[in-house]
Protein backbone atom coordinates (compact mmCIF):
# COMPACT_ATOMS: atom_id res chain seq x y z
CA UNK A 1 0.00 0.00 0.00
CA UNK A 2 2.64 2.48 0.97
CA UNK A 3 4.60 1.92 -2.25
CA UNK A 4 1.54 2.50 -4.44
CA UNK A 5 0.92 5.84 -2.71
CA UNK A 6 4.41 7.09 -3.36
CA UNK A 7 4.20 6.36 -7.07
CA UNK A 8 0.95 8.31 -7.35
CA UNK A 9 2.46 11.35 -5.65
CA UNK A 10 5.48 11.39 -7.93
CA UNK A 11 3.44 11.47 -11.15
CA UNK A 12 1.93 14.91 -10.35
CA UNK A 13 5.32 16.53 -10.90
CA UNK A 14 5.62 17.59 -14.54
CA UNK A 15 9.06 17.92 -16.00
CA UNK A 16 9.31 21.50 -17.23
CA UNK A 17 12.79 21.27 -18.70
CA UNK A 18 11.65 20.59 -22.27
CA UNK A 19 9.13 23.38 -21.97
CA UNK A 20 11.85 25.78 -20.87
CA UNK A 21 14.03 24.66 -23.77
CA UNK A 22 11.31 25.40 -26.28
CA UNK A 23 10.31 28.70 -24.75
CA UNK A 24 13.87 29.95 -24.70
CA UNK A 25 14.41 28.80 -28.26
CA UNK A 26 11.43 30.88 -29.36
CA UNK A 27 12.64 33.75 -27.21
CA UNK A 28 16.05 33.66 -28.87
CA UNK A 29 14.43 33.65 -32.28
CA UNK A 30 12.35 36.71 -31.51
CA UNK A 31 15.26 38.54 -29.96
CA UNK A 32 17.37 38.02 -33.05
CA UNK A 33 14.56 38.69 -35.50
CA UNK A 34 13.42 41.90 -33.83
CA UNK A 35 14.44 45.08 -35.47
CA UNK A 36 13.35 47.97 -33.37
CA UNK A 37 11.49 50.69 -35.14
CA UNK A 38 13.53 53.87 -35.45
CA UNK A 39 11.93 56.67 -33.46
CA UNK A 40 9.56 58.63 -35.66
CA UNK A 41 7.98 61.90 -34.80
CA UNK A 42 4.98 61.16 -36.96
CA UNK A 43 2.53 58.35 -36.72
CA UNK A 44 1.68 57.07 -40.17
CA UNK A 45 -0.68 54.35 -41.24
CA UNK A 46 0.36 53.22 -44.72
CA UNK A 47 -2.06 51.99 -47.38
CA UNK A 48 -1.74 48.46 -48.68
CA UNK A 49 -0.52 47.26 -52.04
CA UNK A 50 0.29 43.97 -53.73
CA UNK A 51 3.80 45.15 -54.41
CA UNK A 52 6.49 42.91 -52.95
CA UNK A 53 9.62 45.02 -53.43
CA UNK A 54 11.70 45.55 -50.35
CA UNK A 55 12.10 49.05 -48.97
CA UNK A 56 15.74 50.03 -49.29
CA UNK A 57 17.27 51.81 -46.33
CA UNK A 58 20.41 53.25 -47.87
CA UNK A 59 20.66 56.73 -49.32
CA UNK A 60 17.02 57.52 -48.68
CA UNK A 61 15.19 60.78 -49.05
CA UNK A 62 11.74 60.38 -47.65
CA UNK A 63 8.75 62.65 -47.71
CA UNK A 64 6.12 61.71 -45.15
CA UNK A 65 2.69 63.11 -44.60
CA UNK A 66 0.32 62.27 -41.80
CA UNK A 67 -3.44 62.31 -41.48
CA UNK A 68 -3.60 66.03 -40.80
CA UNK A 69 -1.57 66.76 -43.91
CA UNK A 70 1.61 67.71 -42.07
CA UNK A 71 4.52 67.12 -44.41
CA UNK A 72 7.96 66.03 -43.23
CA UNK A 73 11.20 65.30 -44.95
CA UNK A 74 13.80 62.89 -43.68
CA UNK A 75 17.11 61.43 -44.74
CA UNK A 76 18.55 58.05 -43.87
CA UNK A 77 21.17 58.14 -41.15
CA UNK A 78 23.88 56.47 -43.24
CA UNK A 79 26.81 58.32 -44.79
CA UNK A 80 25.06 59.32 -48.02
CA UNK A 81 21.96 60.46 -46.20
CA UNK A 82 23.92 62.60 -43.74
CA UNK A 83 25.93 64.11 -46.55
CA UNK A 84 22.79 65.03 -48.45
CA UNK A 85 21.16 66.45 -45.33
CA UNK A 86 24.18 68.65 -44.79
CA UNK A 87 24.19 69.85 -48.40
CA UNK A 88 20.47 70.63 -48.15
CA UNK A 89 20.96 72.65 -44.98
CA UNK A 90 23.92 74.51 -46.47
CA UNK A 91 22.10 75.49 -49.63
CA UNK A 92 18.87 76.32 -47.83
CA UNK A 93 20.74 78.55 -45.42
CA UNK A 94 22.42 80.35 -48.31
CA UNK A 95 19.37 80.63 -50.58
CA UNK A 96 16.97 81.83 -47.92
CA UNK A 97 19.51 83.86 -45.96
CA UNK A 98 18.87 81.92 -42.75
CA UNK A 99 22.46 82.18 -41.55
CA UNK A 100 22.56 78.74 -39.95
CA UNK A 101 25.51 78.12 -37.66
CA UNK A 102 27.53 74.88 -37.94
CA UNK A 103 25.85 73.69 -34.73
CA UNK A 104 22.44 74.24 -36.28
CA UNK A 105 23.46 72.43 -39.43
CA UNK A 106 24.64 69.46 -37.40
CA UNK A 107 21.27 69.57 -35.64
CA UNK A 108 19.60 69.51 -39.05
CA UNK A 109 21.50 66.33 -39.87
CA UNK A 110 20.56 64.81 -36.53
CA UNK A 111 16.88 65.73 -36.73
CA UNK A 112 16.64 64.75 -40.39
CA UNK A 113 16.73 61.05 -39.62
CA UNK A 114 13.56 61.46 -37.55
CA UNK A 115 11.81 64.00 -39.70
CA UNK A 116 11.83 67.74 -40.26
CA UNK A 117 8.53 69.43 -40.82
CA UNK A 118 8.72 73.17 -40.31
CA UNK A 119 8.33 76.07 -42.73
CA UNK A 120 11.62 77.50 -43.97
CA UNK A 121 11.03 80.65 -41.93
CA UNK A 122 10.90 78.67 -38.67
CA UNK A 123 13.84 76.46 -39.49
CA UNK A 124 16.46 78.44 -37.60
CA UNK A 125 14.57 78.55 -34.33
CA UNK A 126 13.59 74.91 -34.76
CA UNK A 127 17.20 73.84 -35.15
CA UNK A 128 18.08 75.52 -31.87
CA UNK A 129 16.03 72.91 -29.99
CA UNK A 130 17.70 70.24 -27.92
CA UNK A 131 17.10 66.54 -28.53
CA UNK A 132 14.48 66.29 -25.81
CA UNK A 133 12.73 69.45 -26.99
CA UNK A 134 12.75 68.13 -30.55
CA UNK A 135 10.88 65.01 -29.49
CA UNK A 136 8.27 66.99 -27.61
CA UNK A 137 7.88 69.71 -30.23
CA UNK A 138 4.81 69.35 -32.43
CA UNK A 139 6.05 70.33 -35.83
CA UNK A 140 3.55 72.19 -37.99
CA UNK A 141 4.65 70.44 -41.21
CA UNK A 142 6.14 71.90 -44.35
CA UNK A 143 3.46 74.03 -46.03
CA UNK A 144 2.44 72.56 -49.37
CA UNK A 145 -1.23 73.42 -49.78
CA UNK A 146 -0.57 76.81 -51.32
CA UNK A 147 0.61 76.35 -54.91
CA UNK A 148 2.57 79.59 -54.89
CA UNK A 149 4.22 78.87 -51.57
CA UNK A 150 4.93 75.17 -51.82
CA UNK A 151 7.91 75.03 -49.48
CA UNK A 152 8.57 71.35 -50.06
CA UNK A 153 9.70 72.59 -53.43
CA UNK A 154 12.29 74.81 -51.68
CA UNK A 155 13.61 71.90 -49.66
CA UNK A 156 13.91 69.58 -52.66
CA UNK A 157 15.40 72.33 -54.74
CA UNK A 158 18.03 72.93 -52.05
CA UNK A 159 18.79 69.23 -51.96
CA UNK A 160 19.27 68.94 -55.70
CA UNK A 161 21.24 72.16 -55.91
CA UNK A 162 23.51 70.90 -53.16
CA UNK A 163 24.17 67.58 -54.80
CA UNK A 164 24.53 69.16 -58.23
CA UNK A 165 21.44 67.44 -59.58
CA UNK A 166 22.38 64.02 -58.29
CA UNK A 167 19.20 62.49 -56.92
CA UNK A 168 19.18 60.25 -53.86
CA UNK A 169 19.03 56.58 -54.84
CA UNK A 170 15.78 56.02 -53.01
CA UNK A 171 13.15 58.69 -53.06
CA UNK A 172 10.19 57.55 -51.04
CA UNK A 173 6.78 58.82 -50.23
CA UNK A 174 5.38 57.71 -46.93
CA UNK A 175 1.75 58.67 -46.78
CA UNK A 176 -1.11 58.10 -44.40
CA UNK A 177 -4.34 56.43 -45.46
CA UNK A 178 -6.53 59.27 -44.34
CA UNK A 179 -4.79 62.20 -45.98
CA UNK A 180 -6.90 63.89 -48.59
CA UNK A 181 -5.78 63.89 -52.20
CA UNK A 182 -4.76 67.58 -52.60
CA UNK A 183 -1.79 67.08 -50.26
CA UNK A 184 -0.60 64.15 -52.33
CA UNK A 185 -1.10 66.19 -55.48
CA UNK A 186 0.92 69.11 -54.15
CA UNK A 187 3.75 66.84 -53.07
CA UNK A 188 3.75 65.32 -56.54
CA UNK A 189 3.82 68.82 -57.97
CA UNK A 190 6.93 69.64 -55.91
CA UNK A 191 8.57 66.41 -57.10
CA UNK A 192 7.73 67.06 -60.73
CA UNK A 193 8.93 70.62 -60.57
CA UNK A 194 12.34 69.37 -59.51
CA UNK A 195 12.51 66.72 -62.16
CA UNK A 196 11.74 63.77 -59.91
CA UNK A 197 9.47 61.54 -61.94
CA UNK A 198 10.22 58.20 -60.42
CA UNK A 199 9.89 57.32 -56.77
CA UNK A 200 8.50 54.72 -54.44
CA UNK A 201 5.48 54.73 -52.22
CA UNK A 202 5.83 52.97 -48.91
CA UNK A 203 3.00 50.52 -48.49
CA UNK A 204 2.04 47.60 -46.33
CA UNK A 205 1.93 44.19 -47.93
CA UNK A 206 -1.28 42.66 -49.16
CA UNK A 207 -1.94 39.37 -50.90
CA UNK A 208 -2.82 39.36 -54.58
CA UNK A 209 -6.54 38.56 -54.93
CA UNK A 210 -7.08 35.21 -56.62
CA UNK A 211 -8.44 35.07 -60.13
CA UNK A 212 -6.98 38.41 -61.22
CA UNK A 213 -4.52 38.73 -64.14
CA UNK A 214 -1.55 39.42 -61.87
CA UNK A 215 -2.41 36.42 -59.71
CA UNK A 216 -2.57 34.17 -62.77
CA UNK A 217 0.73 35.43 -64.11
CA UNK A 218 2.50 35.05 -60.78
CA UNK A 219 1.13 31.54 -60.48
CA UNK A 220 2.33 30.65 -63.97
CA UNK A 221 5.76 32.06 -63.27
CA UNK A 222 5.93 30.31 -59.96
CA UNK A 223 4.97 27.01 -61.63
CA UNK A 224 7.54 27.56 -64.37
CA UNK A 225 10.31 28.15 -61.87
CA UNK A 226 9.39 25.07 -59.89
CA UNK A 227 9.78 22.97 -63.00
Amino acid at each position, binding site marked *: *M*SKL*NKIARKSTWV*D*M*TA*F*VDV*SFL*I*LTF*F*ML*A*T*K*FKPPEVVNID*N*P*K*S*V*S*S*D*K*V*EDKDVFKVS*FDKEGRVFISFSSDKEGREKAQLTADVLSRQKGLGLTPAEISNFIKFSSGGIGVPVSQLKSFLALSDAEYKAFKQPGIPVSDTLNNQLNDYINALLTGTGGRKPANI*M*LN*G*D*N*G*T*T*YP*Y*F*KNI*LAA*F*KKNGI*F*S*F*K*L*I*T*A*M*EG*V*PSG*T*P*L*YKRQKEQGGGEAK
Partner: protein
Amino acid sequence: MAEIAQDSGGGGHKKGPGVKKQARKDARVDMTPMVDLGFLLITFFIFTTTINSPKAFKLNVPDDSAKDEEQTQAKASGAFTVLLSKSNHVYYYEGQLQSDGSNFKSSNFKEIRNELLRKKGSTAEKDLVVIIKPNEEANYKNVVDMLDEMQILEIKRYAVVDIAEGENALIRVTEGTSAPAPAAGGK
Protein backbone atom coordinates in the same frame (compact mmCIF):
# COMPACT_ATOMS: atom_id res chain seq x y z
CA MET B 1 -5.51 9.12 7.13
CA ALA B 2 -4.85 5.84 8.66
CA GLU B 3 -2.61 4.96 5.80
CA ILE B 4 -0.51 8.08 6.16
CA ALA B 5 0.03 7.40 9.79
CA GLN B 6 1.06 3.91 8.84
CA ASP B 7 3.42 5.35 6.26
CA SER B 8 5.18 7.74 8.62
CA GLY B 9 5.44 4.94 11.08
CA GLY B 10 7.07 2.86 8.39
CA GLY B 11 9.47 5.73 7.63
CA GLY B 12 10.51 5.88 11.20
CA HIS B 13 11.09 2.18 11.16
CA LYS B 14 13.72 2.18 8.40
CA LYS B 15 15.43 5.55 8.25
CA GLY B 16 17.97 4.79 5.54
CA PRO B 17 15.74 4.68 2.45
CA GLY B 18 13.61 7.66 3.60
CA VAL B 19 16.61 10.02 3.68
CA LYS B 20 17.71 8.88 0.31
CA LYS B 21 14.34 9.69 -1.21
CA GLN B 22 14.31 13.22 0.17
CA ALA B 23 17.75 13.94 -1.29
CA ARG B 24 16.54 12.84 -4.71
CA LYS B 25 13.59 15.20 -4.52
CA ASP B 26 15.82 18.22 -3.80
CA ALA B 27 17.83 17.76 -6.98
CA ARG B 28 14.76 18.65 -8.96
CA VAL B 29 14.41 22.38 -9.60
CA ASP B 30 10.98 23.88 -10.09
CA MET B 31 11.06 25.31 -13.60
CA THR B 32 7.64 26.97 -13.56
CA PRO B 33 8.79 30.53 -12.77
CA MET B 34 11.44 30.21 -15.45
CA VAL B 35 8.80 29.24 -17.99
CA ASP B 36 6.67 32.15 -16.84
CA LEU B 37 9.52 34.54 -17.35
CA GLY B 38 10.42 33.01 -20.71
CA PHE B 39 6.93 33.41 -22.04
CA LEU B 40 6.63 36.91 -20.67
CA LEU B 41 9.70 37.88 -22.68
CA ILE B 42 8.43 36.07 -25.76
CA THR B 43 5.19 38.00 -25.53
CA PHE B 44 7.12 41.24 -25.26
CA PHE B 45 9.19 40.48 -28.31
CA ILE B 46 6.19 39.34 -30.32
CA PHE B 47 4.45 42.62 -29.66
CA THR B 48 7.44 44.78 -30.45
CA THR B 49 8.36 42.93 -33.64
CA THR B 50 7.12 44.45 -36.84
CA ILE B 51 5.94 41.38 -38.66
CA ASN B 52 5.44 42.60 -42.18
CA SER B 53 8.07 45.05 -43.17
CA PRO B 54 6.91 47.84 -45.47
CA LYS B 55 7.04 47.31 -49.21
CA ALA B 56 7.98 49.77 -51.91
CA PHE B 57 5.49 50.56 -54.62
CA LYS B 58 7.17 52.06 -57.66
CA LEU B 59 5.44 55.00 -59.22
CA ASN B 60 6.42 56.93 -62.29
CA VAL B 61 4.72 60.20 -63.04
CA PRO B 62 4.66 62.00 -66.38
CA ASP B 63 6.41 65.26 -67.01
CA ASP B 64 3.69 67.90 -67.21
CA SER B 65 5.96 70.34 -68.94
CA ALA B 66 6.19 68.11 -72.03
CA LYS B 67 4.84 69.76 -75.12
CA ASP B 68 1.31 68.95 -76.15
CA GLU B 69 2.30 67.12 -79.32
CA GLU B 70 4.61 64.87 -77.31
CA GLN B 71 1.89 63.86 -74.94
CA THR B 72 0.02 60.73 -75.72
CA GLN B 73 -3.53 61.20 -76.74
CA ALA B 74 -6.08 58.86 -75.29
CA LYS B 75 -8.56 57.35 -77.68
CA ALA B 76 -12.04 58.05 -76.45
CA SER B 77 -13.20 54.51 -77.15
CA GLY B 78 -10.49 52.96 -75.00
CA ALA B 79 -10.72 55.41 -72.14
CA PHE B 80 -12.12 54.40 -68.81
CA THR B 81 -12.37 57.13 -66.24
CA VAL B 82 -12.56 56.38 -62.55
CA LEU B 83 -13.60 59.14 -60.21
CA LEU B 84 -12.78 58.87 -56.54
CA SER B 85 -14.64 60.71 -53.87
CA LYS B 86 -15.08 60.86 -50.12
CA SER B 87 -15.88 57.83 -47.94
CA ASN B 88 -14.54 55.39 -50.54
CA HIS B 89 -17.11 56.21 -53.19
CA VAL B 90 -16.12 55.33 -56.72
CA TYR B 91 -17.74 56.55 -59.92
CA TYR B 92 -16.82 55.71 -63.45
CA TYR B 93 -17.67 56.30 -67.04
CA GLU B 94 -16.42 54.90 -70.32
CA GLY B 95 -15.25 56.98 -73.20
CA GLN B 96 -16.37 60.56 -72.99
CA LEU B 97 -18.78 61.81 -70.41
CA GLN B 98 -22.19 62.42 -71.94
CA SER B 99 -23.45 65.91 -71.45
CA ASP B 100 -26.54 64.63 -69.66
CA GLY B 101 -24.42 62.37 -67.46
CA SER B 102 -26.20 59.23 -68.69
CA ASN B 103 -23.04 57.10 -68.73
CA PHE B 104 -21.92 58.25 -65.31
CA LYS B 105 -22.18 55.29 -62.96
CA SER B 106 -21.65 54.72 -59.30
CA SER B 107 -19.60 51.85 -57.99
CA ASN B 108 -17.37 50.77 -55.15
CA PHE B 109 -13.89 49.34 -54.77
CA LYS B 110 -15.09 45.76 -55.04
CA GLU B 111 -17.20 46.13 -58.14
CA ILE B 112 -14.88 48.43 -60.01
CA ARG B 113 -12.50 45.52 -60.53
CA ASN B 114 -15.10 43.62 -62.55
CA GLU B 115 -15.89 46.71 -64.59
CA LEU B 116 -12.21 47.26 -65.31
CA LEU B 117 -11.75 43.60 -66.23
CA ARG B 118 -14.70 43.76 -68.58
CA LYS B 119 -13.32 46.90 -70.20
CA LYS B 120 -9.89 45.31 -70.47
CA GLY B 121 -11.34 42.25 -72.16
CA SER B 122 -13.35 44.25 -74.69
CA THR B 123 -10.68 46.78 -75.66
CA ALA B 124 -7.46 46.37 -77.60
CA GLU B 125 -4.52 46.62 -75.22
CA LYS B 126 -2.93 49.57 -76.98
CA ASP B 127 -6.12 51.60 -76.75
CA LEU B 128 -6.97 50.96 -73.17
CA VAL B 129 -6.15 53.79 -70.83
CA VAL B 130 -7.52 54.24 -67.35
CA ILE B 131 -7.81 57.76 -66.07
CA ILE B 132 -7.98 58.16 -62.32
CA LYS B 133 -9.49 61.38 -61.11
CA PRO B 134 -9.62 61.87 -57.37
CA ASN B 135 -11.52 64.88 -56.10
CA GLU B 136 -10.53 67.00 -53.11
CA GLU B 137 -12.28 64.74 -50.65
CA ALA B 138 -10.74 61.50 -51.83
CA ASN B 139 -8.01 60.25 -49.58
CA TYR B 140 -4.55 58.94 -50.23
CA LYS B 141 -5.61 55.36 -49.53
CA ASN B 142 -8.16 55.47 -52.34
CA VAL B 143 -5.58 56.74 -54.80
CA VAL B 144 -3.05 54.08 -53.85
CA ASP B 145 -5.74 51.40 -53.90
CA MET B 146 -6.67 52.44 -57.41
CA LEU B 147 -3.02 52.46 -58.53
CA ASP B 148 -2.70 49.05 -56.93
CA GLU B 149 -5.72 47.88 -58.86
CA MET B 150 -3.83 48.77 -62.03
CA GLN B 151 -1.05 46.43 -60.91
CA ILE B 152 -3.48 43.68 -60.02
CA LEU B 153 -5.27 43.89 -63.35
CA GLU B 154 -2.05 44.49 -65.27
CA ILE B 155 -3.29 47.61 -66.95
CA LYS B 156 -0.20 49.23 -68.44
CA ARG B 157 -1.53 52.67 -69.23
CA TYR B 158 -3.09 54.76 -66.55
CA ALA B 159 -2.87 58.31 -65.37
CA VAL B 160 -3.82 60.32 -62.33
CA VAL B 161 -5.47 63.48 -63.54
CA ASP B 162 -7.16 66.39 -61.80
CA ILE B 163 -10.90 66.24 -61.77
CA ALA B 164 -12.93 68.52 -64.00
CA GLU B 165 -15.50 70.81 -62.43
CA GLY B 166 -18.35 69.21 -64.36
CA GLU B 167 -17.46 65.78 -63.06
CA ASN B 168 -17.13 67.03 -59.54
CA ALA B 169 -20.56 68.61 -59.83
CA LEU B 170 -22.00 65.28 -60.91
CA ILE B 171 -20.45 63.57 -57.89
CA ARG B 172 -21.87 66.19 -55.59
CA VAL B 173 -25.31 65.77 -57.13
CA THR B 174 -25.12 62.01 -56.68
CA GLU B 175 -24.04 62.35 -53.12
CA GLY B 176 -26.73 64.92 -52.54
CA THR B 177 -24.48 67.44 -50.86
CA SER B 178 -25.79 70.25 -52.98
CA ALA B 179 -29.10 71.11 -54.57
CA PRO B 180 -29.66 68.71 -57.47
CA ALA B 181 -29.00 70.33 -60.77
CA PRO B 182 -31.80 69.80 -63.29
CA ALA B 183 -30.51 67.93 -66.32
CA ALA B 184 -27.76 66.02 -64.58
CA GLY B 185 -29.74 63.43 -62.57
CA GLY B 186 -26.92 60.96 -62.19
CA LYS B 187 -28.31 57.68 -60.99
